[in-house]
């Protein structure tokens, strides 16, 4: 029997599955919270990316495999529930590319979650800009790319900072990883 207080990255398959389900639900909930924030951003695509709070935490508590599954699924679910087809077409490549970059940077071991998440946020918006460039002919990349990179960097840094406070509280052992 598993102890209820056991850290979420430990335990057998059933415990892991249950906890990953909870993280998935939390990511979707974050998407909802973000959808009801009424502030309109001056640059399209600019978002805080609250669900990434959960995705980055899963990356550190488990591995990139669990993180990429939850990340891709939440983009689709959040897109259907609170967004539209565009949030999925633009969000999915962004989420996957961002996670790839984060997994690689994490593996180097020289950055903390703050740097990893900052780069992830930037990568997310680079991928989104690339998709917009492919879909919309004449998309003004030279104006959107720098603005979205800065936005992604800020959001990613904030998310990483928050996660650096959250993760040790969920699992003191993830600290050492």
């Amino acid at each position, binding site marked *: 029997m598993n102890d209820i207080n056991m850290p979420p990255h430990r335990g057998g398959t059933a415990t892991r599955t249950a906890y990953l389900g909870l993280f998935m639900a939390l990511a979707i909930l974050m998407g909802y919270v973000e959808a009801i924030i009424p502030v*309109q*951003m*001056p*640059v*399209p695509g600019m978002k805080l990316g609250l669900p990434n709070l959960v995705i980055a935490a899963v990356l*550190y508590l488990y591995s990139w495999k669990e993180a990429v599954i939850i990340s891709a699924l939440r983009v689709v679910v959040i897109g259907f529930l609170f967004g*539209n087809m*565009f949030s999925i077409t633009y969000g999915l490549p962004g989420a996957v590319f961002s996670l790839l970059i984060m997994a690689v*940077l994490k593996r180097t071991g*020289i*950055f*903390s*979650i*703050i*740097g990893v998440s*900052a*780069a992830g946020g*930037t990568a997310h918006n680079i991928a989104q800009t690339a998709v*917009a460039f492919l*879909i*919309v*002919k*004449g*998309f*003004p990349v*030279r*104006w*959107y*790319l*720098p*603005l979205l*990179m*800065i936005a992604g*960097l800020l959001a990613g*840094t904030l998310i990483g*900072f928050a996660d*650096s406070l959250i*993760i*040790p509280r969920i699992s003191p052992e*993830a*600290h050492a*990883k």
Partner: protein
Amino acid sequence: MRLLKKTDILLIAILAAIPLGMLAFNAISAMNYDETRLVILKDGEIYGTYPLTDDRIIEIGDTNICEISGGEVKMTFADCPDQVCVHSARINSYGGSIVCLPNKIILSIENAEEDEDPNAPDAIAR
């Protein structure tokens, strides 16, 4: 997972320097513009070009309406649900652009002499 290592600061600084450099480059190249105009692209093709000096309201198909007033351009109407372009910041002669992704409409400021723009092969014909 120590809080903010030196390498993090370096990484964030580099990631900030790249877009800031791009923005600076954009702003400098915009300063050289003697005459700027609004170019409207719809589905990747030029819908029309308009001088910023004349105030006017332009209907773009049935889906969008934009307005030039006081040298600034703003999207005032879009039929899509997200209204991202309507909430986009105004653009003026220093450059910038407003994009409506659902209707594939792009408002951008371009130099009047920049007719050799590779994205706008129809510019000369008009």
